[in-house]
């Protein structure tokens, strides 16, 4: 065996003899595990060092035995080793049996995929912990990714959704509405490869209606495109906005209308005074009434301001600041 090739390889390579005794241990194996060639070669002691936890070591052994029962090699077996410095590294193992001078040996090639796995886990964690519905669709429209927020918002689990494309029928059960949305999307996509802030109303598994603002992006190349659909649940925001509009309408009505009424009452009082229809006490009573009305309107305005700024926390911050002056 060419020791130059073994030593310069960027992956761990160990040649194993009988009972997994180490015959050869390359430089990458030394670097990854922290154990030198001298420590590894000549015995199978290294495996106990790499898998110090007895239960875990036994489970790895059982897996290997199970694989080797049907064939003489294994592929892409992932295990976690403990290095000399106590670090955990994830190794992806592939083996091959070779014959050399009439003797059979196994070559175990171990690729350190720790960084890749951590990066995968980080990516999955980002996808899963995102507070937005995230779905990835393959070119046939089948769902490939359905994150936790998607599960929480829609009520449909990853297991039910992944690999299929019929969740949209459940989310948009009304055929006419669904067709309208599809046409709208097709229209947008014919001009761009994506759409932004498209609002639709979905029906969740529990029967609630939620308003989702969708953004999409296309990823991929050479005709094999995937769609990433990001949906933000804006139901609460819509409700807050509706509440705000309702409140503003109420405020406008309860300020504008009474001020006009007070004006009309005063105008009519003046007319009746000019016509000599009122006694002084009656004039005073009418004016008192309008003073009281005006004071009440002023109190209402103060109450509205307080309610808007302090009580209605659902109102978006920007509106609250605006209303608070």
């Amino acid at each position, binding site marked *: 065996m060419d020791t130059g090739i073994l030593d310069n390889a960027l992956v761990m390579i160990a040649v194993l003899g009988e009972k997994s005794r180490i015959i050869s241990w390359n430089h990458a194996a030394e670097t990854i595990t922290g154990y030198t060639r001298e420590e590894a070669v000549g015995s199978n002691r290294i495996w106990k060092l790499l898998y110090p936890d007895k239960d875990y070591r036994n489970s790895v052994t059982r897996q290997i035995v199970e694989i080797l029962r049907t064939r003489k090699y294994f592929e892409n077996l992932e295990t976690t080793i403990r290095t000399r410095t106590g670090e955990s590294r994830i190794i992806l193992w592939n083996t091959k049996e070779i014959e050399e001078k009439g003797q059979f040996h196994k070559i175990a090639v171990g690729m350190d995929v720790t960084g890749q796995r951590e990066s995968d886990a980080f990516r999955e964690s980002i996808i899963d912990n995102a507070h937005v519905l995230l779905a990835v669709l393959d070119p046939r429209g089948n769902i490939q990714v359905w994150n936790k927020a998607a599960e929480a918002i829609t009520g449909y689990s990853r297991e039910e959704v992944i690999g299929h494309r019929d969740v949209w029928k459940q989310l948009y059960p009304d055929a006419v509405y669904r067709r309208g949305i599809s046409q709208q999307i097709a229209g947008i996509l014919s001009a761009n490869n994506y759409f932004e802030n498209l609002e639709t109303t979905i029906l969740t598994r529990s029967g609630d209606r939620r308003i989702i603002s969708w953004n999409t992006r296309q990823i991929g190349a050479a005709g094999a495109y995937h769609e990433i659909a990001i949906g933000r649940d804006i139901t609460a925001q819509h409700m807050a906005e509706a509440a705000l509009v309702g409140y503003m309408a109420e405020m406008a*009505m309860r300020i504008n209308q*009474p001020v006009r009424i007070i004006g009309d*009452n005063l105008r009519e009082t003046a007319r009746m005074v000019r016509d000599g229809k*009122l006694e002084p006490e*009656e004039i005073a*009573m009418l004016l008192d*009434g309008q003073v009281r009305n005006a004071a009440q309107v002023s109190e209402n305005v103060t109450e509205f301001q307080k309610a808007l700024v302090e009580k209605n926390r659902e109102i978006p911050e920007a509106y609250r600041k605006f209303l608070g002056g």
Partner: protein
Amino acid sequence: MSGVPDIVNPEALEEKRIFLLLSSPDHVRERNIEVIRELSMLGYHTVVITTNFPYSILIKLYRGAGVDPGAVSFIDAVTRNSIGHAENIPGVVHFINNPGNLTDLGIAVTESLKEQSGRKVCILYDSISTMLIYLSSANISKFIHFVTNKLRLMDVSGIFLAVEKGLDPMLMSQLTTFVDTVIDTEEK
């Protein structure tokens, strides 16, 4: 003005219908007086709930318009609020401390209707718009619902006056569900 009622349909009144009467702000008082005169001509006793002008002034205006004061009684939510103290006069006027006091207003409606039992009675509420000074639209809506239910149970017709375009669409749509007919007097 002819001798024939032209705001409220007499047959509809006979059927104890409930009306929402919309008027421009300048004509609210005028409409109030016209309706009272029409009701009086049709032989109705009208219980006027006034939240705007004191009963003493309204009665003067009605008299000036040729209405028999005996054909009208009042629930007055203005006078006590203005002069602080006024005694009820059975069959003529019930005073309420404040237009926002819906409990007292409800009691006064019940008592006034009892006092007029056996007569052809109609309630005139003047006006929903003024109530907005003292109550939220949600509370107004609840109160109007309460009063319309009471009128139906007691088999009495009622007319609610409001300024046209002064109510927000939400309150307006609720009110229209409580009444039988909406009359926009400015369209006539």
